[in-house]
């Protein structure tokens, strides 16, 4: 076998074998990864809406953009708040935040960082409970603000992480953008009206069937 053929065969075999192995592993791993992601999303919704027992997915297209919200309902089927995902650029990549908004459309019920690739030890501290917890109960309208190196003074402020202002800012900005988008797509009155229309026919919620 001459050398060129050998080189050629080496690479073809290694590439093909590697590709086959990866395809096989992906086939097994991908459903598990998707299931993990879905579970994480569900968990996040219940974290940001702590008094919700169930939730339903509501989708709406505004300006050709699909807006998805998760409406949390308690045992008595009363809405307790809405959750939605806020995405946007951070220091190094997307920062995805699950935001829980009270039904009064003013206070945040809580947040949970879903995706982030911020600097380890600095920016990635946005996903620590100490930072996430600050958002509980603060005012989201007109906007959330952050301040540096001091304790928050106003009801719409949180304290940024020292050395990670860009990441802290990303979280706040993403929340503000998402809140504005959701409020535009789902004005308060409309949600209440939709609530009455959707509930009897909803397939998203098991409890809704009983309620209907």
């Amino acid at each position: 076998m001459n050398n060129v053929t050998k080189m050629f065969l080496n690479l073809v075999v290694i590439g093909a074998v590697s590709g086959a192995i990866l395809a096989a592993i992906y086939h097994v791993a991908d459903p598990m990864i998707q299931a993990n992601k879905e579970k994480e999303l569900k968990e996040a919704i219940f974290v940001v809406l702590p008094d919700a027992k169930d939730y339903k997915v509501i989708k709406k297209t505004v300006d050709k953009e699909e807006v998805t919200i998760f409406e949390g309902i308690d045992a008595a089927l009363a809405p307790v708040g809405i959750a939605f995902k806020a995405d946007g650029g951070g220091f190094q990549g997307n920062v995805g935040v699950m935001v829980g908004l009270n039904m009064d459309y003013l206070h945040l019920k809580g947040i949970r960082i879903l995706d982030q690739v911020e600097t380890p030890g600095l920016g990635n501290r946005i996903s620590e409970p100490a930072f996430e917890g600050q958002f509980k109960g603060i005012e989201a309208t007109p906007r959330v603000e952050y301040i540096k190196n001091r304790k928050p003074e106003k009801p719409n402020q949180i304290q940024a992480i020292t050395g990670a202002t860009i990441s802290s800012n990303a979280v706040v900005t993403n929340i503000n953008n998402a809140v504005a988008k959701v409020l535009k797509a789902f004005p308060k009155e409309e949600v209440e009206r939709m609530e009455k229309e959707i509930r009897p026919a909803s397939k998203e919620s098991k409890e809704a069937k009983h309620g209907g």
Partner: protein
Amino acid sequence: MADNGNNVSLWREFKKGLWQEIPPFRLVLGTCPTLAVTNSVKNGVAMGLATLFVLFWSNIIISAVRKTISPQVRIAAYVVIIALLVTIADMFLAAVFPAISKALGPYVPLIVVNCILLGRAEAFAQKNPVIPSIFDALGIGLGFTMSLATMGSIRELLGFGSILNFKILGNWFEPWIVMILPAGAFMVFGGLIALINYISSRKQGGENLV
């Protein structure tokens, strides 16, 4: 000594990674993760262990196929093998241990570009049988993990006043934020290289005198 020469040399292959050829400080390889992910002990150890896993398997595979690979295409072949292993590790963690995968974030894919892997493939696995290659991988991998843990301890202690998130220094201690920033990584890295060179030159000097 000559009777159990085989065991001695395996032990030597293992031990060299822990001091004599400890990757970031003596070989000055794998400096990118050493600088980037050592701002806490946990991150450093996680990165070290993930690298150890990939190095272990890449040394075995490369050593096993070393006679069938043409020298001209060996680098391409090694890179594909390493990338395969890293992708497997990444998918495995995401599927089975989502929490760990989330904590490690982008470090796992970054192992592909760690020069230690290609370095060991070139310098050791392609010239040696499988068994010594395993010992080489374990030694270098553990040495790398130890180095990252040491860097992480110093930086976390000075930067946060804690080790493994456990508060060591009291409230009187004002954390040196610079230590967890990239500049601190270079300072600690330089300091440790100097210290290790100093210790080994002292050692050598001592031996020469005797």
